[in-house]
């Protein structure tokens, strides 16, 4: 370890932050030493991001003091934080999509020549230099929308380092990464601490904390619960401190033989937004009563595949059949009629009309069917009753069907979608990244819902970038690589290493 216990780089004392009447941070203390990786653990909405936004100057604390390297500081805005050597990688990336990597990194501290002319040559050189120095390889001239999420994260880290950050805050950095990328990130963090940097890491993933962090501060409902040394604390202890009760990690499911062939996909070819083939001859069979997990590194055609399957994207060639019936290039409506339900990967973009109420969102696919509508006239009462029932059944909070989906937390938004999709009683349920950004409690719920569907003899397709999730939940695992299924294995026989290899393109072509 590189920790220098004699130097407290960050001390946050008695931080309280109120949003109106709501107390997001309630008298929190945090001490971080030079060279350590300090994890912040807590459920969704516990107040972790808020605390870090205060440290970075985005929010002002209602009460409390902050010391950096022993000096009391008043961090009025990010500029001050940057000057004090604090860098932050936000939960939602702060990258300008149409800009290049280099442009994003230098923004706000641009090298110039003459009066305000950008010196892009120097910018590129600088970026190349620091990227070499920290082993974070990027291509400075790539546009952000052309690079993978993992790459984007590197850009975020480089942004902080370019500003000379000594203290690096990473807010849920692994939520969107592949296992390989997570490994790389952990390695990067080690490199950084070796060079004397200090890292504050926010995450829900206990495994990562165990792997990467030295200390862990647990926050629950805005309150500081404890700060522990990670080595001496078990995952189960961390989990129960976080949620305040015991949680189970294993997905409970019974052995089950799958039923008849429901969905078959032959030689599917689909183009992406840039008109390049993203799915390149994908073939796959899915049976009733099974969860088929699709594992793969982000950007291997998963999104395009799902969109084609749900009618949102044109199929160039190949066939999609349900019970032998060809539904290739049917409209989304027709596909919904075939009782294919899907939990979209981007819940705010596809899954919800954020300005509609919970009730209105609950009927998104059935608004024109009885009992919700008759002859084009909506039946408000039926809609309300239906929504109230689902809210109760799926424990959506707050339990008011008339509030807008926009004001729900991410986890509750996801519950609304799942409630809607599952209640449609689908033949096939396609779940894309259904637990992204959720806390363990919520994840547990989602997984249970998927297994329930399988047990009702439905076909479930689970697409996830989290290998753990795929391995835990699925019955069979198909690995997608460069727009093709490169291998299918039974989940029981699968091991992380072989799957990881296949996901990286080193797979065998044998069918499982």
């Amino acid at each position, binding site marked *: 370890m590189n920790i220098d216990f004699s130097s407290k780089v960050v001390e946050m004392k008695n931080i309280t932050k109120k949003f109106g009447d709501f107390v997001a941070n309630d008298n929190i203390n945090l001490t971080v030493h030079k060279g350590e990786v300090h994890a912040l653990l807590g459920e969704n909405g516990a107040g972790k991001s808020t605390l870090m936004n205060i440290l970075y100057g985005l929010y002002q604390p209602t009460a409390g003091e902050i010391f950096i390297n022993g000096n009391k500081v008043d961090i009025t805005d990010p500029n001050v934080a940057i000057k004090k050597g604090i860098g932050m990688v936000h939960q939602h990336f702060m990258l300008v999509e149409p800009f290049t990597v280099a442009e994003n990194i230098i923004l706000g501290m641009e090298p110039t020549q003459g009066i305000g002319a950008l010196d892009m040559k120097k910018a590129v050189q600088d970026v190349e230099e620091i990227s070499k120095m920290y082993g974070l390889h990027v291509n400075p001239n790539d546009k952000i929308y052309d690079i993978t999420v993992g790459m984007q994260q590197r850009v975020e880290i480089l942004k902080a380092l370019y500003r000379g950050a000594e203290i690096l805050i990473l807010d849920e950095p692994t939520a969107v990464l592949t296992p390989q990328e997570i490994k790389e990130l952990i390695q990067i963090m080690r490199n950084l601490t070796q060079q004397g940097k200090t890292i504050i890491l926010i995450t829900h993933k206990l495994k990562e904390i165990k792997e990467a962090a030295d200390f862990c501060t647990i926050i629950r409902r805005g309150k500081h619960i404890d700060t522990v040394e990670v080595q001496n604390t078990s995952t189960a202890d961390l989990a129960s401190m976080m949620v305040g009760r015991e949680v189970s990690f294993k997905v409970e499911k019974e052995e089950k033989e799958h039923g008849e062939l429901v969905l078959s996909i032959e030689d599917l070819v689909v183009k992406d937004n840039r008109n390049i083939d993203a799915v390149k001859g994908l073939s796959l069979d899915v049976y009733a009563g099974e969860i088929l997990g699709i594992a793969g590194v982000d950007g291997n055609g998963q999104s395009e595949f799902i969109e084609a399957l*749900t009618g*949102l994207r044109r199929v160039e060639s190949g066939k999609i059949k349900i019970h032998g019936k060809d539904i290739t290039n049917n*409209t*989304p*409506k027709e*596909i*919904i009629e075939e009782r294919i339900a*899907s939990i*979209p990967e981007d819940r705010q*973009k*596809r*899954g*919800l*009309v*954020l*300005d*509609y109420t919970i009730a*209105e969102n609950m009927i*998104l*696919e059935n*608004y*024109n069917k009885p009992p919700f*509508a008759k002859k*084009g*006239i*909506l039946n*408000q009462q039926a809609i309300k009753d239906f929504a109230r029932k689902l809210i109760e059944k799926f424990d959506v909070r707050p339990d008011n069907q008339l509030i807008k989906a926009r004001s729900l937390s991410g986890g509750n938004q996801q519950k609304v979608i799942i409630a809607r999709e599952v209640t449609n009683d689908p033949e096939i349920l396609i779940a894309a990244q259904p637990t992204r950004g959720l806390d363990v409690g919520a994840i547990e719920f989602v997984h249970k819902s998927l297994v329930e569907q399988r047990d009702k003899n439905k076909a479930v397709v689970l697409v996830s970038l989290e290998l753990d999730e795929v391995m835990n939940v699925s019955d069979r695992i198909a690995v997608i690589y460069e727009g093709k299924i490169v291998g299918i294995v039974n989940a029981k026989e699968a091991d992380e290493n072989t799957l990881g290899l296949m996901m990286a393109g080193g797979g065998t072509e044998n069918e499982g």
Partner: protein
Amino acid sequence: MKDKGLKEKILHFILNGNFGFTLVSIILGLAVGAIILQITGFNAFEAYKIMIQGVFSRPNYIAWTIVRSTPIIITGLSVAFAFKTGLFNIGAEGQFIIGAITAAAVGYFVKLPAVLHIPLVILAAITAAGFWGAIAGYLKAKFGVHEVISTIMLNWIALYLNNYIVRIEGFRRPLNERSYAIQQSASIVVLEEWKRSEAGRAWLLNHEFWRDVFRTPLNLGIVFAIVLAIIVWFILNKTTLGYELKAVGYNKHAAEYGGINVSKSMLVSMSIAGALAGLAGALHVMGDSKSIASLAAMEGYGFDGIAVALIGGNTPLGVLLGGLLFGGLKYGGSKIQPTLGAPSEVISIVIGTIVFFIAMPKLIKMVMKLTTKNRGAKNVE
């Protein structure tokens, strides 16, 4: 105590509802107008007195205000409807013109009894203007053409089309730049024939109130406007169509995912918006102008409709009230020039200021908080 609770509730409604913001905006707008008048040497108090009297003091003034408000209420509904479904209809101006052309033509060339003629004229006008609106919807859905550009272009095309059609021989009145007037059977002016008849004149001579009212082309347009407001409200809030259109407006990706045909929705939405604005034009012809004229410039019914929609917070009831306010300001405002010599442009400034403040609920909220706080402090003392 109870009383206070109620008071607080009302205060809460005014402070937090859009209604309160709008009210404050209107007051601020009028205040700015007053300041400008006062600075430039006119008696603002007098000016507003004239305006208010000019709108309310006689039955025919009220009738005029209604007549002048009718078209902009309906174009306001058109704009508000499009707004609600995520589209910005700058094209109400052109759709109004198309509706007016069609109404003038069908009203003049077709000869039918009124019970058939009026519906036919209306149907023709909303079809034509709906089609005109649909062009923008189609271009957006099919080619991704921003509706702001396409409707601006279509406005001008409609204007020149109007001037072309007015001049067609057989339609144009000889030696004039107007079309022939529509047949009496297509008129929606209330009791038009009767009030011109001997008997009507005789009766009206003895009934001053009604004589006053019937001097104006008071027409059924306002009834249509109210019914349309209800229909728009109903479509938006009570029907699956409204559900679809609003879903597309709020989030077309989610709508598409939910099985809604996004392209079709845009088309439908723009058609309805177009039909509404076209109906405004038709009713204007049937109830007021009776014919169309060559246009040297845009008349502004569509642009005023945008302001009305915004003042009305894009809600049907709001648009109704906003249209009456706007119509009243314009009609009453035209009276300050002859009596006071004050430039009537001050009305544009007042309207602009109202809209400007309506854009800033945040500022209004701050202002209101400040004033209520002060009042609260005073109460304590």
